[in-house]
């Protein structure tokens, strides 16, 4: 037990559960908390959350599956969401997404062989004026070209590697 939701997260979730009138309202912050820990939401974590919140697993799964922001399977160290909606598409967003895939030898929604990236084509992220753009983790990178995007990713990957080397 507590393998997927460690004590610190558990405390956070319990606090969230108390905050709303119904426990189901606390699901989104709870699931984000789990995703922050693991990069995605494993089924085992859902089971633990179910015990913690007294909500049926199927109810949690409904919410989890409804939102694309929750990853239902493991993602690479960098989750690269490339906008492919109208403005970005007109400015080469789709080609950019493909280019990143080709560079890292990976298809959409998969973990690249090196484990570095997962590329997801997504709908408008609200930065149309800076198209094309991508979101990596929580940060936006805008006015991209194929080259500048890869540069960003290389830099981020390098930083990640440095951090994990320290740990």
């Amino acid at each position, binding site marked *: 037990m507590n393998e997927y939701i460690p004590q610190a997260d558990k405390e956070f979730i319990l606090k969230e559960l108390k905050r709303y009138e119904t426990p189901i309202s606390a699901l989104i912050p709870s699931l984000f908390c789990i995703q922050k820990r693991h990069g995605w939401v494993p089924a085992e974590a*859902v089971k633990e959350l179910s015990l913690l919140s007294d909500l049926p*697993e199927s109810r949690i*799964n*409904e919410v989890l*599956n409804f939102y694309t922001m929750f990853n239902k399977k493991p993602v690479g160290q960098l989750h690269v969401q490339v906008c492919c909606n109208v403005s970005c598409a007109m400015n080469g967003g789709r080609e950019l997404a493909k280019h990143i895939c080709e560079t890292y030898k990976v298809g959409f929604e998969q973990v690249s062989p090196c484990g570095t990236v997962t590329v997801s084509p997504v709908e408008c992220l609200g930065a149309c004026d800076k198209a094309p753009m991508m979101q990596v983790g929580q940060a936006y990178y805008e006015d991209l070209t194929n080259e500048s995007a890869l540069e960003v990713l290389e830099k981020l990957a390098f930083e990640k590697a440095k951090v994990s080397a320290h740990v």
Partner: protein
Amino acid sequence: MFKCTINGHEVEVPEGASVIEAFKLLKEDIAHYCWHPGLSIAGVCRLCMVQIDDGPRLHIACNTLVKDGMKITNQTEVVKEAVRWGMDFHLINHPLDCPICDQAGECGLQEQYMKYGQYDSSMAEKKVKKRKVVDLGERVVLDSERCILCSRCVRFTDEVTKTNELGIFNRGDHSEIGTFEDQPLDNKYSLNTVDICPVGALTSKDFRFQQRVWYLKDTDSICTGCSTGCSIKVYHNKEGLFRVKPVFNEKVNGHWMCDEGRDLYKHVNAPVRLKQILKSVGNEWFPLGLERALDHLNEAFSKAENISVLITAQHTVEEYKALKNWAQQLQDKTINFVYWKNNPESFDSFDGLLIRGDKNPNTKGLLEAGFEFADASVLDSSDLVLAPMPENPAVYPKYMEKLEQLSKLQTQLCLLSVSNITQHETINFADGTLAIPMKTAFEKAGHFINHQGLTQKIHKGRVIVKAALGLDELLQAIKIGKWIQPQLLKSRKTNESSKVSGELW
């Protein structure tokens, strides 16, 4: 002879043969409606399209003669497209109600549709493909594409069973019914989801593809599975019983019934039944006509000093009344009634929804009939035991053990049984034991009184075993025997004949 190549295979055909004949010779698949080997060529259905050599146009195979060296194919996209369009034209004015058409299942149009049909509708958007034949556990199968997302089944597991297995996952037109991690839907009421599903998305493993429902008749009845006594409909045709569904009854079961109750029709069907009266002599069973069986019984009853009746609460109010009357006629005999419960430890249990541990439909009815029950130990000192057996011996684990014990004591039994008890592997019944086929609750009319004291009627549905008797009918026959003239039998109103039968012994 001409040589030609069809879909890459070479074949030799006599001069004057048509291309379609060459296809048939090779047993290669080719669509066609109007061509028939026994008739002239019409060439009107335009379905037997083929491509010949590199010709620019397609040809109809039925009206084109093979020439030496021809290369013919019907596998190219161009041909398939043409056949698809041909189908479309045939279907413009054709009704789309195959299920009520008598040709369904062996219809040329259907067969072509299975091969060339445009499974996607003409809507511009692509249809979302979802999961088919999903195994949802022991009893239910899901076809996600047929689901219209009404959420009835989800609400059933949330609100009625409170087991919460089902949910609607994903979003928009990708929404799909499912269980978390594909865990099975294994609550004791799961088949209700099949009943409430308005479409063919949830189906019952037991019933799917067994019968077309319009060939089934139904009879109102009461479930005999426990003392709740859910109102049901039993569906049957001349091949037997096929399914049981709940009927709304505000006082008893609401809209629902349990899964186990739905299995009870199975012991009614012919393969498992005792079909004629059998008598055991020297470890073998011999068939007996009713007349001779009555002789035998009368003799046995008159000889026996100490008679016991091993009764369960699985019979109707009417049958208990007949039993009581019968016993009152036999004043010179000791008759002990032994009331056998299915399982004393769990007898009073209740799952909070419908299922009760008392696996009998008429416990109240039996108790209200006013028997005085003796201790089960009297069975051992009896020389004749009348045992109207429980319909479903599976819920009476200890009952068969008792019969085995009695048989070891060489006690003569008169068994009234639904299942073919003579096939029992370990019991060696005493000489003179009689096994009489018994009617099930679906084959007789009468009343059951459920746990809350509600008297409910069962209706006579389909008779599966013609020779089967109800307990009351058997007692009636014993009572009347062959001493009574037939005309007396017919005109008999109430108790007259029972007086006569009192003298039998």
